[in-house]
């Protein structure tokens, strides 16, 4: 009980004083996770839409695969990306291990299936609705995918937010490929893990509260943007 009260006090203290270390870690968390989600959107949205619209053999299998990859364990992804980026691995020459880029790569792998699987669902539903219309307009698949992604942009935002939630909350992958290096690859979740292992549970929980607040902010901002866009549309 005492720890929980202390955690609230700690987190407010950190926020009110705009603690330099905290600001740095928060910005890095945002930066890594937003980049990962951005990259996942570029790949995942068209991929999901393609699986929804195109008819090809094994399409169902791909859809099932995408859905199951939504549950990829972060530690396993971390390990795979580590083995790829390690100096002893195939991409070792890039020297990316223990940099924020490595963390973006790992989170990209985690998030892309989520974005793609949710996008597939959204686009499939829209397709059921607009198929005839689009066909009568003579829209080819590429055109149809673009149209439906644009039409479903508000629903697809939820897919991106789900991806962002996953990325900003995971610790297993970024710990392995980032290394939790102070001022370089320390993000909110790895800082929480570190403070926990120092036994400073109040500070760890305080950071946790800030992470949750951050997630609220991002989601809130997304909804505001959506409402603005809708009212203007």
């Amino acid at each position: 009980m005492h720890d929980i009260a202390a955690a609230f006090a700690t987190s407010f203290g950190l926020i009110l004083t705009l603690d330099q270390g905290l600001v740095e870690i928060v910005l890095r968390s945002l930066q890594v996770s937003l980049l990962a989600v951005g990259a996942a959107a570029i790949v995942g949205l068209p991929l999901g839409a393609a699986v929804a619209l195109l008819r090809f053999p094994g399409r169902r299998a791909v859809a099932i695969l995408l859905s199951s990859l939504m549950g990829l364990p972060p530690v396993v992804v971390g390990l795979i990306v580590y083995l790829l980026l390690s100096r002893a691995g195939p991409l070792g020459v890039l020297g990316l291990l223990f940099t924020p880029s490595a963390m973006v790569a790992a989170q990209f792998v985690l998030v892309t299936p989520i974005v793609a699987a949710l996008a597939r669902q959204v686009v499939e539903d829209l397709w059921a609705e607009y198929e005839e219309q689009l066909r009568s307009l003579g829209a080819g698949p590429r055109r149809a995918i673009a149209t439906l992604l644009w039409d479903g942009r508000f629903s697809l935002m939820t897919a991106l937010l789900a991806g962002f939630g996953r990325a900003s909350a995971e610790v297993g992958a970024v710990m392995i490929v980032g290394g939790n290096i102070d001022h370089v690859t320390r993000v909110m979740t790895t800082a929480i893990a570190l403070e926990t292992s120092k036994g400073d549970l109040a500070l760890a929980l305080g950071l946790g509260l800030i992470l949750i607040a951050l997630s609220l902010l991002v989601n809130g901002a997304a909804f505001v943007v959506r409402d603005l866009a809708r009212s203007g549309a």
Partner: protein
Amino acid sequence: MISRRLSLLAPLFVAILMAGPGQALERGIVVASTTSTQDSGLFDHLLPIFTARTGIEVRVVARGTGQAIKLAQNGDADVLFVHDTASEEKFVAEGYGVRRFPVMYNDFIIVGPKADPAQIAGLKDSVAALQSIAAAKAPFASRGDDSGTHKAEQRLWNAAGIDAKAASGTWYRETGSGMGQTLNLAVGMGAYALSDRATWLAFKNKGDFAILAEGDRRLFNQYGVILVNPERFAHVKAADGQAFVDWLISPEGQRAIDDFNVEGQQVFFGNYKSDPS
């Protein structure tokens, strides 16, 4: 209209993204080290002094000794700074490292609940303490992660003639995690644990735990530092890495190690001798 409002957000995003992930290391080295040196706060004390003096940035990746050695064997670190003399010597002998320098020591302690069900309080003989714990089947939290502390603990069990591993899952519990995490678990389940003194003193979740057994010569804990062999890995930053090693064993580095304290107590003792014989 909308786009104007949205454009207000754009600078924010640009600012976040511009912070630039993955900018190439200019003057920086990666040091693979242990959870004890990180969790105790030693590096937070040492690194600013070293960086101010040399301009070399040190990036510490803290793992158990076994894992840290694996990292270095893969060429993913420039310097290895760990505490298991036997594996360090093997690392050098196999050509992964240039040369090992003994840097500092601290000691291990056995911590446990003040209620002390195995009656080990005040024992100097760490082996006898472990024998009492095993005889009482009192819970014992082991690192179980191939770290330097874990290896030291295994040597003690061997000396005690007890196959603790056979009891794994009953009173002997392998946490498979770092020192601090293991202490959290030990405190949570009232289990004894072997810890290095520095991590224990800096640890903030002690609950009703205390140091129960200490002072045995077998609890001596030596740290060594090794430059990863640049002949084996061409990308190793040999000059800057060696500068870090040289600084640690210099009078100034040794003094900085001695000056570090936790709650007013010195926890690491520089013991590099310029002429090891």
